């Protein structure tokens, strides 16, 4: 239950950052995808069925505040979770450069998963040139904020008495 509260608080905070605060900052041309970093966090620290459910709910939460297609981000973040937890079983990714690299790759993977789903399942026009233009910059921004997000979530869990 406390784990759920920790994730919910982190997700609400991340969503407020992404929908209001980052948009108001004049020196932030690309909004870092903090929700993606939370999905990566789940993939590294929660390799359980509830971790997978958490990633799906995070994506659904993003779907409420992004675009019109319900399930697009739920699909992408669940895919990211699945990929990251598979890698995290074999490699140490907790902090520093390994963490930033995995978040960078996860951000690119997320864009590819979303575009692939749009192109195949929903029959929408592919947006590859968008991925090329914003995907790399967005992945770079997400990897920059990842250590800070991990530190904040770890601190938050400690406040709630979680390991």
């Amino acid at each position, binding site marked *: 239950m406390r784990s759920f509260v920790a994730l919910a608080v982190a997700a*609400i905070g991340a969503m407020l950052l992404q929908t209001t605060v980052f948009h108001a900052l004049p020196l932030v041309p690309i*909004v870092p995808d903090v929700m993606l970093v939370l999905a990566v966090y789940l993939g590294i620290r929660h390799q359980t*069925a509830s971790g997978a459910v958490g990633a799906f709910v995070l994506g659904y*939460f993003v*779907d409420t*505040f992004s*675009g019109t297609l319900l399930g697009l981000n739920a699909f992408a973040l669940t895919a990211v979770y699945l990929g990251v937890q598979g890698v995290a079983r074999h490699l140490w990714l907790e902090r520093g450069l390994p963490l930033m690299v995995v978040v960078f790759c996860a951000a690119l993977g997320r864009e590819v998963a979303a575009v692939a789903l749009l192109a195949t399942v929903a029959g929408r026009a592919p947006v590859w040139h968008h991925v090329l233009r914003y995907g790399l910059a967005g992945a770079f921004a997400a990897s920059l904020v990842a250590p800070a997000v991990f530190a904040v979530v770890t601190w938050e869990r400690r406040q709630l008495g979680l390991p």
Partner: protein
Amino acid sequence: MSFLRRNRVFLTSAFGLALAAILVVQTGHTPARSDRLGRFFLEVMAPLQRSVAAVERMVSGSWHGVADLLSARGENVALRARVRLLEQELDRLAEVGLENGRLRALLDFRETLQGDLLTARVVGRDASDVSRTLTIDRGESDGVTRGAAVLAPQGVVGQVFLVSRHAARVLLVSDHNSGIDAFVQRTRARGIVQGTVDAGCALKYVKRTEDVQVGDTLVTSGLDGIFPKGMPIGRVTAIDKRGQGLFQSADVAPRVDFDQLEEVLVTRGTVVPIEREAEAK
């Protein structure tokens, strides 16, 4: 049994992926949504977004006052306090003046329309770079419904696609899922204005024989039953007649600066321009 236990993470993730794909297919046919969980999330987040947006406005309004205060270290304490108070007051008044100007423009614009219109504040932007949507602080309790047109004094903003009790989300005309029936104001050539992934718009399905020129203004046709007729959408910036098809297309710069938008008007029911009404009588 042991297979399920051994692969429960993978199986749960696969179930999540399948469920998400089904949701995408189900919601892919129409931009309007009515999922209860989404409405719940929107309702929970709306007051928080409203508070953060209010703090954001306050901080941006007093920022210059704080900067000036830091540069006034050499002056005596009483004078600094006085200057600080006066500058805060000035900043507040400047902010109020700007807000007054925006609201007056909104009011003037509202008086050009016949019908039930509601003023709403923008409290959130889209969570990703792929889509162009806004969150406003009005919902079902104010009479906002799905499909309502959202307007600004400069022109068309978009259309409501998700409503909760006290908030709603708006699909902007520049979103790639958006499409509006439009006229070229000068020649009455008809086409569809669609959003693009680059946050601009494109005019499509205009007959190759029609006269469209760079600088032409595009207005709503009113034929979709959503937007009042004659509302400005944008200006043609480039024309593309390549290819052998029946149609030509054009790049369009939207009239509304969506990044600067703070207040909008939302239609409740049918709205028509007043001049049209007078002509009809």
